[in-house]
C-alpha cells in the first residue's frame, strides 16, 4: 500500500506541490517531492504539539513558504554550481562592473550627452596609453604563462586566446571608466589637471587589471577554462625557507592539473599544466 493511498494530501497542498516542483531542477524533483509529501502529511496528521501557542494554520502557511524557499534554494544552488568559475561568469561580472561604472559616470555628469562629451577625451588618452600598458604587461608576464599559451592547440587554444583577449579588453575599459569617474568632479574646476590625473590613474589601474587577468588565466583549466579548484600542498613543509615544495590545483571536470612551484628550484622550474586525458573526465 503506497503512502498516498493511506490518506491523500489536501487539494491545496497537492496543487501547491505540483506548481512549485517545476522550480526544482529535474534531477532532484522526485526526491524533493517525496520529502515534502511526507512533511506535509505528517504536519496534517501529527498528534504531539510541542509549541502550544503555534496554531495548525500558522504551521501550514509556514510550511508552504518553506517548500517554496527549499525549491528556490535548490534552483539557485544548481545555477551557482553550473556557473561557478565559468568564463561566461567572469566576462559577465566584468561587463556588470563596466555598466556600474558607466551608470556612475552618468549620475555624476547628469545626462548621457554630457557624459559622452566628457568621456571622449579620457577614452582617446586611455586608448593610446593602453598600447604601452599592454606591451609592459606582456613583457612582465611570467615565462611560464607565455609557454602555456604557446603550447595551445586547435580550438581550445583559440577559445583560450579569445577569452583572454575579451577579458583584457574589458579590464582596460573598466580601468578607463573608473579613472574617468574619479576625475569627473575635478574636471569641472580644473580640466587640464583632471586630464593628467585621469591618465595617471588609468595606467596603474590597467597594469593591476592586466596582472589580475594573467593570474586568472593561469588559474583556469586549459580546456574548459573553468577556475581550477582544490589546491593541495605538495612535498614536505619547512624544506624551502619554511615553505612547501609547491601547490597543485585540479580541474573539477578532470581535464588536467596545474603544478605551481613555491620557487623555481623547489619542484618544476615554472608553473606546469598536465593534461590528464579523457579517462579522468
Amino acid at each position, binding site marked *: 500500500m503506497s503512502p498516498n493511498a493511506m490518506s491523500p494530501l489536501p487539494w491545496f497542498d497537492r496543487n501547491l506541490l505540483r506548481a512549485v516542483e517545476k522550480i526544482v531542477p529535474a534531477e532532484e524533483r522526485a526526491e524533493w517531492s*517525496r*520529502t515534502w509529501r511526507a512533511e506535509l502529511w505528517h504536519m496534517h496528521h501529527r498528534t504531539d504539539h510541542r509549541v502550544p501557542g503555534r496554531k495548525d494554520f500558522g504551521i501550514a502557511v509556514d510550511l508552504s*513558504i518553506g517548500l517554496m524557499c527549499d525549491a528556490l534554494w535548490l534552483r539557485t544552488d544548481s545555477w551557482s554550481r553550473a556557473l561557478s568559475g565559468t568564463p561566461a561568469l567572469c566576462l559577465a561580472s566584468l561587463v556588470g562592473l563596466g555598466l556600474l561604472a558607466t551608470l556612475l559616470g552618468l549620475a555624476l555628469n547628469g545626462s548621457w550627452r554630457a557624459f559622452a562629451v566628457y568621456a571622449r577625451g579620457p577614452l582617446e588618452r586611455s586608448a593610446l596609453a593602453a598600447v604601452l600598458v599592454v606591451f609592459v604587461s606582456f613583457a612582465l608576464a611570467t615565462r611560464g604563462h607565455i609557454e602555456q599559451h604557446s603550447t595551445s592547440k586547435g580550438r581550445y587554444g583559440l577559445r583560450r586566446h579569445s577569452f583572454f583577449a575579451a577579458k583584457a579588453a574589458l579590464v582596460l575599459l573598466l580601468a578607463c571608466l573608473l579613472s574617468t569617474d574619479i576625475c569627473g568632479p575635478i574636471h569641472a574646476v580644473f580640466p587640464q589637471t583632471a586630464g593628467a590625473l585621469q591618465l595617471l590613474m588609468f595606467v596603474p589601474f590597467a597594469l593591476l587589471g592586466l596582472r589580475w587577468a594573467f593570474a586568472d588565466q593561469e588559474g583556469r583549466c586549459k580546456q574548459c577554462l573553468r577556475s581550477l579548484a582544490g589546491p593541495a600542498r605538495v612535498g614536505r613543509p619547512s624544506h624551502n625557507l619554511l615553505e612547501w615544495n609547491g601547490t597543485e590545483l585540479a580541474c573539477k571536470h578532470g581535464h588536467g592539473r596545474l603544478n605551481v612551484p613555491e620557487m623555481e628550484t623547489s619542484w618544476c622550474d615554472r608553473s606546469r599544466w598536465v593534461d590528464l586525458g579523457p579517462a579522468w573526465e
Partner: protein
Amino acid sequence: MNTPRLSHSAALILKALSLGYCFGLDVMEATGLPSGTVYPALRRLERDELVESKWEPEEEATAKQRPARRYYEVTRAGKAAAMAATQRYPLLAHLVPEKRS
C-alpha cells in the same frame, strides 16, 4: 581539520539535530525557526557534509500507515562543528530543549 563557522540559525539547527530532533518539522518546532530558514539550512549543512540524510525504511513506515520520512543525522564533522558553535554561542545550549524519547 578546520571547523566551519556557522551562522546563528545553522548552529541552532545543528544543535537541535545533535539533541535528537531528526526531521524538518521536528527541528522547526524545537528551534522556533520558520521553515523557510530550516529547510534551506538543512540542505546547506548536508552539502557541507555536516549532516547526512537517509530515508526511513519503507516497510517500517507502511506498517505504521504513514509515508516514509527523511531523517537527518549529524556527521562526525557536524558534531565537531556543533561543539565549536556551542562554545562560540554559549546560550545555544539553553535554547533547544533535550528531546523527550
